C-alpha cells in the first residue's frame, strides 16, 4: 500500500512536469522541422506534422525582415536596461539602507508599486505618460528610449529587493573601517561594501535581465513601430510563427536559469555538508 502511494506521488509530479514542459519541448522539437510546403514557401502552420530535420528555421530567423531586428532590439534593451537598473538599484539600496526608518519605509513602499501593479496598468500608464509628453510638451520620445525607460523602471525594484537583504547581513562597520583606514567614501564603497554584497547585486542583475526578456505587456503598449521579440510573436501568430523565433532566445534563457539555480542549490548543499562536518568535529 505504502509503495503504491509513494509511486503515485512520483507519477503525479511527473505528470505535472510533463504538463509544464510538454508545450515547450513541442516547440523546440518542431523548430527543427522542415516546413517547406509544396509551393516552396515556409508553411509554419503545418506544425504538428514531422517532415524531416533541418536547421533552416534558425537561419531564417536572422534573414526575416522583422524577427531579426526584434531579436537584436530585445537583447539590446535587456542588457542596457538591466545594467542601468543594477547600477541605480544598487546605489539606491545602499542609500536606503542608511536612511532613517520612517523615510526608508516610505521609499520602500513606493518601490513596491511596480511589483504589485498589474503589467497592464504599468503598460498603459507609460503609454499615457509618453502620449502626454508628445502631445502637450511636443517632445517625441523614440521607441528605443521608451522601452529603455520602462524596462529600467520595472526592473529597479527587483534589484533593490535583492541587494537590501545582503546589505542587512553585511556589517556597517565594514564601511566605517574602510574610512578609518584612509579610504575616501567612494573607495570605501567600491572596495569594501560592493564586494561584500556582490552576490545580491548579481542576482539582482539576473532578475532584471529576466524581467526585461520576459516582458510582453509593457513593451506592447508603449512601442509604436519597433517590436520586441514577444510583441513580434504576438502580432504574427495567427498564420503560424517560425518556432525557431520562439525558442532561439527563451530556451537558452530558461536553460541558464536552471543552471544558475541548480548550481546555487548544489553550493548550498555543499556548504551544509561542510557545516555538519565541522559540527561533528
Amino acid at each position, binding site marked *: 500500500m505504502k509503495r503504491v502511494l509513494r509511486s503515485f506521488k512520483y507519477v503525479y509530479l511527473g505528470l505535472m512536469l510533463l504538463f509544464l514542459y510538454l508545450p515547450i519541448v513541442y516547440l523546440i522539437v518542431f523548430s527543427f522541422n522542415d516546413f517547406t510546403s509544396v509551393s516552396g514557401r515556409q508553411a509554419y502552420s503545418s506544425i504538428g506534422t514531422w517532415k524531416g530535420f533541418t536547421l533552416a528555421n534558425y537561419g531564417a530567423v536572422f534573414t526575416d525582415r522583422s524577427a531579426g531586428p526584434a531579436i537584436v532590439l530585445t537583447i539590446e534593451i535587456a542588457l542596457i536596461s538591466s545594467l542601468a537598473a543594477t547600477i*541605480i538599484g544598487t546605489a539606491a539600496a545602499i542609500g536606503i539602507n542608511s536612511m532613517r526608518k520612517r523615510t526608508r519605509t516610505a521609499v520602500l513602499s513606493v518601490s513596491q508599486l511596480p511589483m504589485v501593479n*498589474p*503589467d*497592464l496598468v504599468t503598460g*498603459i500608464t507609460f503609454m499615457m505618460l509618453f502620449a502626454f509628453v508628445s502631445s502637450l510638451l511636443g517632445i517625441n520620445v523614440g521607441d528605443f528610449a521608451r522601452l529603455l525607460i520602462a524596462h529600467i523602471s520595472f526592473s529597479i525594484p527587483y534589484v533593490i529587493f535583492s541587494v537590501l537583504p545582503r546589505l542587512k547581513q553585511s556589517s556597517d562597520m565594514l564601511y566605517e573601517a574602510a574610512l578609518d583606514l584612509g579610504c575616501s567614501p567612494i573607495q570605501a564603497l567600491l572596495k569594501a561594501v560592493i564586494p561584500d554584497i556582490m552576490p545580491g547585486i548579481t542576482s539582482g542583475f539576473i532578475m532584471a535581465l529576466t524581467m526585461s526578456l520576459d516582458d510582453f505587456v509593457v513593451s506592447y503598449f508603449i512601442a509604436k513601430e519597433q517590436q520586441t521579440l514577444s510583441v513580434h510573436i504576438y502580432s504574427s501568430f495567427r498564420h*503560424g510563427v517560425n518556432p525557431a523565433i520562439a525558442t532561439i532566445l527563451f530556451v537558452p534563457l530558461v536553460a541558464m536559469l536552471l543552471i544558475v539555480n541548480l548550481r546555487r542549490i548544489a553550493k548550498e548543499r555543499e556548504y551544509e555538508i561542510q557545516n555538519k562536518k565541522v559540527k561533528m568535529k
Partner: protein
Amino acid sequence: MKRKYFAYPYIVWMILFIAVPMIFIFYYAFNVDGRWTTERFVQTIANGDYWIVLLKSVEIAFITTAICLLLAYPIAYILSNMKKSVAAFISVLFFVPMWMNFVLRTYAWYAILEFAFPKLLGVKLLTNSTSNTIAVLVVMVYDFLPFMVLPLYNTLSKLDRSLLEASRDLGANGVTTFFRVVLPLSVPGIVSGITMVFIPAITAFTVTAMIGHGKPNLYGNVIEKQFKSTSGGFATGSTLAIILLICVMVSTLIMNHFDKDKEGGSIL
C-alpha cells in the same frame, strides 16, 4: 558625503517614472480633449456591459486560481516531504517556467490546439464559446501554475516537523493531522499563492486574445482595445483601469489581512 545620497538618483527616477505615470490614469479619466469633465467617467461607470465583462473576468480568474491551488498543493506537499536535497532540485524544475515568456508559452498552446490537434484528430477544437472557455482555462492554469507552487512550497518546506510528530503522538491520524495542523499552518502560502495568480489572471488579455480568438471577452481585453485600437479611448480605458486598480487594492488588502507573516518570496 552621506551614504543616503546614493538613493537620490533613484528617488528622482521613482517620482518621474513610477509615481507620475500613475497620475495619468486619473488625468485622462477626467480630462477629455483638454477639458476637465466627469462626463466620460460617469458614462463608463454607468455602462452595464463593462460590469458584466468584469464579473466574467473575476469568474474566470477565480476558477483558474481554484484549479491552480488544487493542482499545486499536492505538488508542494509532496516536495516538502521529500529529502531536502532532492526536493530542492525538483522544485527548481517547477519554478523555472515562471520566467519564460508568457506569449511564447501561450503560442506553444496555440500551435498545439489550432494547428496540431485538428490535423491529428481531423476535427477543429475551438469552435464554440464553451470549448473556447475551456481552452482558455487550461492555458491560464498552465501559465499560472508555477506562481502557485512557489509560495506553497516555501511555506510547507519551512513547517516545523515536530508539530506533525506531536499531532501523531497525541493520537491524530494522517488525515486529521493534515486538516488540523498542516493546512491551517500553510494559510500564508495559500494566500500569497492566490494573490500571485488571481490578480494577474483578472488582467490577463493575451491568453484570450490568442487562444480563444478574443472570446471570452475579458476585462483586460476591453482595456487593451480602448488603448490600442480605439481613438480617444484613453478616457474610457483610464476609468476602467481605475476600477481595476480598486479591485486589485481591495484584494491585496484582504490578502494582507490573512497573510501577516509576509511569506512567499522568490527564487534567485
